[in-house]
């Protein structure tokens, strides 16, 4: 470091900089806003003097605190990232088929997308579910549906990610019970349940009950899994939805990590040792189009988390300090116009995720602004990852951009912006208070409107949308994947048959036990697993929670 400092102030470097700055003043520049996609200004070039990093303290080697350069010493030489394509639609049988298709084509992990009724804790035959069953994901109303979903898939050998939040503990219970019925010890189950309720209130909006009981269920999951499902990631703290809702990169970073800190605080308040649960916290980020800003965001996330976990929360196990994260390319960056261009966008975003050191990756399909992805589009998306992994040779070196003046300056800038938000959040009474008062939502909304303005005034250019446009009325030459309305009827029939065949006394007593645990404070996940085995439905269990805890209502944002 001291050598760098000397170099920074050496006469030749300073002279060179002055000459360059003079030349720059003379230069004719292109019209345009030279900012990141988040609106942060960037200089025309970075050099010594633009960044002050201490290699040991701020970067470290890969696998070393504060993990700025990656969580593993060997990074992708040891193991490539997991290619995990999010999938789910229609009935559990249809999605089961798609899962097998993806596994056959070399995908290494499953990722379940649920439909809106399931995400909101409603059975497929509930009145509110009308028209939405199986539309944007798979309908799973009970253990029976989960059994069909995982049929013929060895649950001790795949890792499964389930994107669900409000009813996450119930869905996890279905999964554990399903494994038990397959003869798989819960200790062998690997995977992740998103279970990140704070960002639901803030951005994604699929919730069940108000914040306090929801947070209690999360700590129930953390403590249950610490002993009994030890390989399960109990929560995937997600910036993805915050970003997709319109936030800047810095906001995504700040709000996601602040949510993470809140879960750590809740775990500690519930009497757990931080090192028993923190290693099972995982993260999920967006990878947007600003290539360098995204890479820096991932690097900053690792550094911030490591520092706070060690220094603020007193974690001693290095696994508690490490952020492991999944990345998905930015759905909002896709355009309905000239949809084939989306393959290129997704490639850039995926590459940023890989250069940023992600542990797993989902690449979006080119047709997702039009409907659910077709099989062909999904395959191209998966192949994109495979080409990056096998052909581009980028996976040989960990954090290949580390040490770049620009990368280090921007990593620091994002870290500083996040720290400023942490202070602001603290001042406003913490993350729950900020969420209930709508502060986080308003910050995101403001950024979303600013981005839309930039797009419409043309300061932000998007190919096919506000430049290089083609005839807007031209029909995109793309096949659409539609959900057959028969799915809804099929689900109704399945549920009706289930309700007839199960032991209704057992169902009643299990639901009573859930109610009792709500009141007494007993571990709810334990009750849910038991209720799952009795084939209590999602809507029935969630219904008890709603009655006991009340429903969440969004604050006024506008």
């Amino acid at each position: 470091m001291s050598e760098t400092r000397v170099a920074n102030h050496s006469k030749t470097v300073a002279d060179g900089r002055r000459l360059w700055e003079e030349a720059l003043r003379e230069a004719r520049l292109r019209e345009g806003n030279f900012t990141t996609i988040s609106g942060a200004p960037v200089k025309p070039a970075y050099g010594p003097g633009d960044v002050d990093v201490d290699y040991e303290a701020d970067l470290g080697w890969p696998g070393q605190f504060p993990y700025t350069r990656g969580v593993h010493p060997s990074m992708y030489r040891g193991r490539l990232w997991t290619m995990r394509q999010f999938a789910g639609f229609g009935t559990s049988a249809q999605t089961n088929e798609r899962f097998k298709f993806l596994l056959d084509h070399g995908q290494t992990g499953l990722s379940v997308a649920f439909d809106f009724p399931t995400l909101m804790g409603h059975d497929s035959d509930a009145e509110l579910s009308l028209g939405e069953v199986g539309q944007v994901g798979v309908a799973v109303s009970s253990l029976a549906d989960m059994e069909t979903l995982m049929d013929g898939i060895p649950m001790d050998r795949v890792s499964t990610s389930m994107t669900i939040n409000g009813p996450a503990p119930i869905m996890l219970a279905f999964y554990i019970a399903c494994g038990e019925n397959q003869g798989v010890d819960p200790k062998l189950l690997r995977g992740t349940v998103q279970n990140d309720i704070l960002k639901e209130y803030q951005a994604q909006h699929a919730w069940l009950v108000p914040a306090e009981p929801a947070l209690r269920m999360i700590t129930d999951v953390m403590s249950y899994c610490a002993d009994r499902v030890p390989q399960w990631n109990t929560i995937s703290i997600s910036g993805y939805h915050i970003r997709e809702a319109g936030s800047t990169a810095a906001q995504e970073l700040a709000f996601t990590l602040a949510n993470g800190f809140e879960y750590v605080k809740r775990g500690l308040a519930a009497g757990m040792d931080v090192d028993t649960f923190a290693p099972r916290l995982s993260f999920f980020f967006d990878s947007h189009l600003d290539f360098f800003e995204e890479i820096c965001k991932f690097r900053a996330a690792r550094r911030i988390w490591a520092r706070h976990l060690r220094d603020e929360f007193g974690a001693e196990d290095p696994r508690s300090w490490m952020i492991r994260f999944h990345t998905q390319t930015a759905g909002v960056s896709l355009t309905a116009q000239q949809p084939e261009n989306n393959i290129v966008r997704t490639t850039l975003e995926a590459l940023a995720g890989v250069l940023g050191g992600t542990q797993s990756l989902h690449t979006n399909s080119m047709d997702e602004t039009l409907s659910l992805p077709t099989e062909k589009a999904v395959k191209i998306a998966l192949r994109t990852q495979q080409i990056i992994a096998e052909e581009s040779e980028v996976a040989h070196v960990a954090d290949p951009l580390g040490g770049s003046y620009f990368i280090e300056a921007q990593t620091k800038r994002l870290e500083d912006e996040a720290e400023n938000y942490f202070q602001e959040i603290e001042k406003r009474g913490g993350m729950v208070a900020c969420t209930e008062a709508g502060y986080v939502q308003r910050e995101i909304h403001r950024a979303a409107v600013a981005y839309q303005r930039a797009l419409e005034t043309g300061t932000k250019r998007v190919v096919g949308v506000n430049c290089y446009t083609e005839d807007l009325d031209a029909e995109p030459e793309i096949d659409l994947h539609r959900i057959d309305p028969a799915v809804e009827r099929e689900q109704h029939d399945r549920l009706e048959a289930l309700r007839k065949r199960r032991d209704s006394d057992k169902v009643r007593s299990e639901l009573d036990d859930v109610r009792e645990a709500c009141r007494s404070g007993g571990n709810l996940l334990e009750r849910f697993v038991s209720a799952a085995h009795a084939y209590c439905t999602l809507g029935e269990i969630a219904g008890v929670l709603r009655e006991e805890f009340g429903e969440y209502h969004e604050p006024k944002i506008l």
Partner: protein
Amino acid sequence: MPERKIRVLIAKPGLDGHDRGAKTVATVLRDHGMEVIYTGLHQTPSQIAEAAAQEDVDVVGLSILSGAHMSLFPRVRAELAERGLKHVLLTGGGIIPREDMEALEGDGFAKLFGPGTKTDDIAQWIQETMRARWTEEEVEA
């Protein structure tokens, strides 16, 4: 006489929680001088129609990204009709395939907007359509 304002209800039918577009459009319409009532997430068709009735809006704009538009949009249209609100300018947007847009536009929806639409274009279309309607009303009166 105070200036007559265009009153717009922006609503999200169904369980889909993606409100970025709805809130952005609401804000932009406000910036174009309209009075915008935003009813929040997870609204049933009857709640939306009831709000439209009580607020006596000129325009109802629905936003949906869940794929349930072919079920929910016609139900909102029917609920509005049931309350005698056939005069309301009905519009919407979201992830809606073109052929569905065409079907809905033949079924009581004046115009639907897909991804990538400029919000200013939406505002302008509403203003022009309402201005034309009001002029027509005046002529009739």
